């Protein structure tokens, strides 16, 4: 017992002394900034061990594609590739747990870009390569892969946004244009609307963006800190709040994005292409895919907005500059037209490559067609503090069937007053 006490005292003392000495540095001095004008190396032949993370649905395909890359280069590279399954949503958190033992090449969803970049898990792309990436891919996809003016990831898909799935036996093509009609028809049929609008900022923002709300955050690329914001939710959010109230009062909304209950309990699901297979299985011939509907408030009609979303491939900074070069080349290859088309054929992923997205098969896919039709109402996701999403979700979830206009005003005030504090988040 005595030993334990002594040990504890020693450790407490040591921790106090250590913590008492406060050292504060400017951690953000970058003495050797990345020079992206250098061309990629050509003399990078050799043997490399490369670890890749991608979704399990394209695991085998990715192995095949990297093998094709190897044989294309005619023995220049001897690659030992280890492809591991990792969903795009988890890639960032797993990467950040231990960058040094994370994958060299990994797929991730665009909203993780700033987190990965700040933590140093993403290598910038050289300018020569960046030029071709920019010209090959959709503008939104390129923006999504850009941080602080530098391209730091390769766009892989442009299908990470959401649109409307509906049951053709409940709703016809003119019904789906208006939310009020959808609510009335669903109510009559006893079917629900699967829509995370009251639970998730990614979906909640769709109503607000429709009425002209936006939230733009300026960021200091060196530190990754948010320096300021321009936010119009308080100014333009009132019609959206009223429309949300109508939706809330209908008691039809289920807070999920699942499509497997279509035809059973639900007639409408707001979801993305990742749920297409489940929707097709649930509804078969009755499956309809459409852009988001409109809502009418005070006599004015607003088309519900959405976010366009992209999946990206990132390359981790490497200690060996030759390996860095090879990894960039592989990532570039994996995101070219051919590989994106193969991914569409295998897993139904919508290409971000312009040429690939114009192929007939892609245009004929109903989900991707609905996304394309929604594109003019969709917004790119800007860099914003992680807690901003909670702030929007909180705003929409506070809407109750019996809320008054004064309540809405108050909610928008609270939302607005929270913004300043989010900057340090």
């Amino acid at each position, binding site marked *: 017992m005595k030993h334990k006490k002594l040990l504890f005292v020693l450790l407490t003392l040591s921790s106090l002394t250590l913590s008492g000495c406060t050292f504060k540095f400017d*951690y953000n001095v970058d003495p050797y900034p990345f020079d992206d004008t250098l061309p990629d190396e050509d003399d990078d032949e050799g043997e490399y061990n490369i670890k890749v993370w991608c979704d399990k649905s394209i695991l085998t395909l990715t192995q095949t594609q990297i093998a094709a890359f190897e044989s294309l280069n005619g023995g220049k590279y001897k690659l030992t590739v280890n492809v591991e399954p990792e969903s795009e949503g988890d890639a960032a958190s797993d990467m950040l747990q231990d960058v040094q033992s994370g994958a060299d090449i990994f797929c991730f969803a665009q909203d993780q870009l700033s987190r990965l970049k700040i933590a140093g898990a993403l290598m910038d792309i050289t300018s020569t390569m960046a030029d071709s990436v920019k010209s090959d891919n959709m503008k939104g996809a390129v923006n999504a892969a850009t941080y602080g003016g530098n391209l730091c990831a390769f766009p892989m898909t442009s299908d990470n946004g959401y649109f409307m799935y509906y049951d053709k036996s409940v709703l016809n093509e003119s019904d789906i244009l208006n939310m009020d009609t959808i609510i009335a028809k669903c109510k009559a049929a006893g079917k629900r609307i699967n829509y995370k609008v009251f639970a998730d900022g990614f979906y909640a923002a769709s109503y607000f963006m429709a009425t002209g709300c936006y939230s733009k955050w300026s960021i200091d690329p060196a530190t990754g800190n948010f320096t300021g914001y321009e936010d119009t939710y308080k100014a333009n959010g009132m019609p959206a709040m009223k429309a949300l109230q109508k939706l809330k009062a209908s008691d039809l909304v289920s807070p999920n994005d699942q499509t497997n209950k279509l035809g059973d309990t639900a007639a409408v699901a707001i979801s993305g292409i990742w749920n297409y297979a489940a929707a097709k299985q649930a509804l078969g011939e009755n499956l309809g895919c459409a852009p988001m509907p409109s809502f009418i408030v005070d006599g004015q009609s607003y088309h519900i907005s959405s976010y366009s979303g992209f999946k990206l491939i990132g390359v981790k900074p490497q200690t060996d500059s030759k390996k860095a070069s090879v990894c960039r080349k592989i990532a570039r290859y994996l995101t070219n037209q051919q590989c994106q088309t193969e991914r569409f054929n295998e897993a139904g992923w919508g290409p971000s490559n312009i040429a690939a997205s114009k192929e007939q098969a892609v245009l004929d896919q109903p989900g991707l067609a609905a996304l394309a039709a929604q594109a003019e109402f969709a917004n790119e996701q800007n860099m914003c503090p992680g807690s901003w999403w909670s702030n929007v979700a909180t705003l929409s979830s506070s809407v109750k069937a019996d809320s008054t206009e004064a309540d809405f005003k108050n909610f928008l005030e609270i939302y607005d007053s929270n913004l300043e504090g989010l900057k340090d988040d």
Partner: protein
Amino acid sequence: MIAEITGLDYLKLKKGQRFAYKFKRFFSLIPTFFKNLGIKIGLFFKNLGLGIYHWFKDLVLTFIHGDWKTKVSYIIMGFGSIARGQILRGILFLGFEILFIVYMIMWGGYHLGKLGSLGMYYEATITNPDGSVVYGVNSFNVLLYGVLTIFFIIALIYTWNLNIKQNRINEQIIADEKRLATAKDDLRAVVDKDFHKTLLALPSIGIFIFTLLPIFFMILVAFTSYDKNHMPPMNLFGWVGFDNFSQLFTWSAGGNNFAMTFGQILLWTIVWAFFATFTNYFLGMMVAMLINKKGIKFKKLWRTILVLSIAIPQFISLLYIREMFQTDGIINNFIASLGGKPIDFWGDPWLARITVIVINIWIGIPYLMLVTTGILMNIPADLYESANIDGASPWQQYSKITLPYMLFVTGPYLLTSFTGNMNNFNVIYLLTGGGPKDINMASSANGSTDLLITWLFNLAVSNSDYKLAAVIGIMVFIVVAILSLIVYNLIPSTRNEEEFQ
């Protein structure tokens, strides 16, 4: 200080007077409590000082009076043992010293040296113009191995001291002309006299690596700037003293008012722990009493039905229940089929709070029923018989016989389940995920059913805010420790049984 009165005088008091007496007594004892605490702390430091003084005195005296073998042992550990023929012990001491030196040269020295700063800015990872990187100091590893090294140094000091003590004892044994223990004796002792040490060696090492080291590491993280902007290996983090604690306790305007968020979550955590513990306890006891009652048929059947819910892993039943209470779940479908309006169980803050407590009752009752059944059957039946003869009502029997008995036996259980509920991650996280969001909460990052532990989880996993998560971890410990100590001193079980009877 109010006058102490005898038990007999106390019994003469009326109800109100008894309460007033207890109330006054409680507050009059507070100064004494702090006085005693002060004395205890003073004594502890006095003993500690004396201990260190005696330790040093022994060391110096042993050096002065010891022979040359002992003196050399101060530098070369185990030398004295080897020179006196205890080869095995000597080699073990020497081996440990060599291991320590090698460790310090290879890893320890580096990490210990960097522990003061956790890496300077010029030691950070640099990116070359061609995009490749040269990894610099990894603050995380420095902190982890630095702590390990400190433990290692403590272990060395302990072993070194043991080695000196060994010399002293051996000199004494030789002076007394007795026989020194041989290697054979030592080996035999490992499986005989010192068998407890052999058995405990592996568990102790396990506890050290998997419990102690992480706890100290986590405590230290609370004093650093480790968050998403200071993430190794690309960025460094450093010591910031008590900045993180002051962040948690500073009142600030806007969405990052951690003080208010902490207060709100702490309040709900305590409310939740209170209801989750006591609703389960009393309802579980009631169910057990119902089933135990004479005249109830199929006792085993009822118990089996209740126990069935334990047979399913808790996280599965929790996830399933969450789905049942969704707006399109089975409960709302049932309400709709009766013509009612659906109830948004998870969407309304107060409804969600009540729902988690009610669901927790459903999960907890079977356990409590099992625990209390056995105890209830052990209450001597003659107590009830004589109570019946004296004309006691069922409520009197319950409140004067059953409840005191139960509280006496299950007091410690109540305490552990209270602290367990404060950290009940499963029920909250699987049912609501901390939600729903409430615009009236101070921070939009947490929901209205978030406990401190789920808040900590969100901070660490979603926001990578490790420093604040560590601070909250420490706060949770402090809150739980204080509550436990108070309650532990109040429950009857800590007094002896005669007093209870």
